[in-house]
């Protein structure tokens, strides 16, 4: 499977939360994107399902920014 790109992740996030792709940068804080915790769960699990990746709670707790999330999705 080819490596996950920032653009692919940004496109998927746009499908879950109301944000423009142009506004997303590797420095964007993930918590700021989701208005509530349920939306946050949807966003993070949706990405894992899309890219066939499994992230644990411990791994997620270390991720703050979009750049770090893309890195985690890529590392598997």
């Amino acid at each position: 499977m080819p490596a996950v790109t920032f653009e692919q992740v940004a496109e998927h996030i746009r499908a879950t939360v109301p944000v423009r792709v142009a506004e997303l940068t590797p420095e964007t804080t993930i918590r700021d994107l989701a208005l509530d915790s349920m939306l946050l769960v949807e966003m993070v699990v949706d990405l894992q399902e899309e890219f066939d990746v499994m992230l644990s709670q411990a791994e997620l707790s270390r991720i703050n920014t979009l750049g770090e999330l893309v890195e985690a999705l890529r590392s598997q």
Partner: protein
Amino acid sequence: MTLSENDLWLLSFYRSSEISAALFFGHVSRFIRGPLQKDVTHHFSDEANHSRLWTDCITELGHRPIKLHRAYQDKYLDAVGLPANVMEVMAATNVLEKRVIGHYRQHLRIPNLNPVVKATIEKIMLDERWHVQYVRDELQRLAGKYGEEEVARTVQRYTEADRAIYAEGLAEYAERFALLPTDGADEPADIEFSALAAGKQESH
């Protein structure tokens, strides 16, 4: 037959918990892939229907549901952290659904239960049993991907949190729950993987 202030609070609490369950499963319905989409979307519509059944029940008894701010699920997620992946979502659901069944079953044991309330719980229980069943089957399947041990550990973590939060809730709302029998509200664990069983034996 009318409702006491406590009864109205309790039924409104059920309604609001069912709404939270529906909202959560709305999100799950959006991210789940493959054949499970059908069951999860069905589940989402069941929970929404349960909140409707409670609304109908309260209205039929001549009242309006009270707006409550925080549902059981919110406290629960605060305590155990957000489910990180599909398996954790299913594990949390397994534990919560068993709690719901156990609690509704206790409610059915109240002497001289209002027949409208009784009929509502009985209708809801039919769906809740199916929820526990398909989620348990899915967890068994996910054990192939996430590992039996990891699934068993996660279910255990949520079960412990659930017991603590439920006990806390019973204490906090002691007056509201005063009529409910206090024994037997915990449903037995239904995920008994060999890894967990082996771990248990070792510690003895």
